[in-house]
């Protein structure tokens, strides 16, 4: 179980629903480990600023996370979390392993736009 304050995606259907209902989505697929927790923390902190982005997590060991683990964009990934950025349901960026706040915000700004109130 991922005990973060992010929206948890428990199933492939829920994952598809979130993508269909939101233009900009970031999904962090990982475990409660040292490489993943900092990325969840960054996402939690950014939620209030990046209101045009839906931030979610999905447990890496949940079989339903095949929707992330089987993406062509992650085929060479060898470190969790797999962080996927979707725009209109399409993957626009994917990263592997721990990322800094600067790395995350650079992707969010580039792919989804700088928040108006930033």
């Amino acid at each position, binding site marked *: 179980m991922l005990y973060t304050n992010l929206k948890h995606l428990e199933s492939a259907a829920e994952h598809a629903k979130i993508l269909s209902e939101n233009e900009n989505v970031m999904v962090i697929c990982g475990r*409660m480990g040292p*490489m993943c927790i900092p990325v969840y*923390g960054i996402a939690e902190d950014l939620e209030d600023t990046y209101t045009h982005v839906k931030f979610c997590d999905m447990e890496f060991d949940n079989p339903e996370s095949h929707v992330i683990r089987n993406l062509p964009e992650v085929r060479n990934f060898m*470190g969790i979390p797999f962080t996927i950025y979707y725009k209109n349901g399409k993957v626009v960026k994917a990263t*592997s392993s721990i990322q800094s706040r600067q790395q995350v915000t650079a992707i969010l700004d580039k792919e989804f736009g700088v928040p108006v109130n930033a």
Partner: protein
Amino acid sequence: MEVTNHYDAIVLGGGPAGLTAGIYLSRAKLRTLIVNEGTIGGQMILTHEIANYPGVESISGYQLANIMKKQAKSFGCDFRNNASPVTLELEGEVKSITLSDGSAYTASSIILTPGGRPRTLGVAGEDDFKGRGISYCATCDGDFFTNKEIVVVGGGNSALEEAVSLTKYASKVTIVHQFDHFQAFEHAIEEARRHPNIEFMMESVITAFKGSENLESVDIKNLKTGETVHFKTDGVFIFIGYLPNTEFIKGHVELNKWGEIVAGNDMSTNIPGVFAAGDSIAKRFRQVTTAVGDGTVAALAASAWLNEMRVKQKNLVDAG
């Protein structure tokens, strides 16, 4: 500088030491601000299970950090998250800091609890292959290397214990260490040495990471002979210790040659009114419990110092 707010104490760092200081100071009705750069909880959140925190049978570091934060908030402690100090003025009775978001604060005392971070090799290609062959966590990424040949860098307890743990997945583990001896406990060294799937390259360092999409090889230099070999590998796990996050106070507060803050028994630094606690101070043992103890002492010492300053000021006023 635009001064927006004054606090009795500003705590720089939101790990267990900083959070404990925040709890004690705010409970003592001192106006307190915790400034935190990363995720609240510091290195503590990276611990999956804490089973030796007295009074708590088992808890994750993430949960413990959130409870500490809640406690501090309940006593009135303010937080500024994801902000780092850009300028610092620590001398004098009124300390001032400017944060990365442009906000500025003053305080009568400062407690430095910046903690530490995992040390990286700083070798070409390291950042490019992070998550594509380079990892800093065996339990997180070990299963990606099932039946593969990997390298572990380091010679301390973490490196040797994780090397043994990684043999559950990898077909072969080569430990690369810069010295001719290990710094780990004897039992950890013995366990690694006895393992049939672990080999050693002593007095050697990685000088380059190479590959296309994923890591494919590393250059390893023998420090004794100067010879560099091209070593094919599927992955590299790096466990080479921690660095104190003290760059921002260099030149302000006395640091030792390792960059650790020099603090007295009462956690005071060389600057009056500035205290330090936690993993960033010069000390032997670094545990959540020792950080909490340091944070307590620093907060109590800061409270006493603030009281002394108030008495001095009152006496000056009374003396006319």
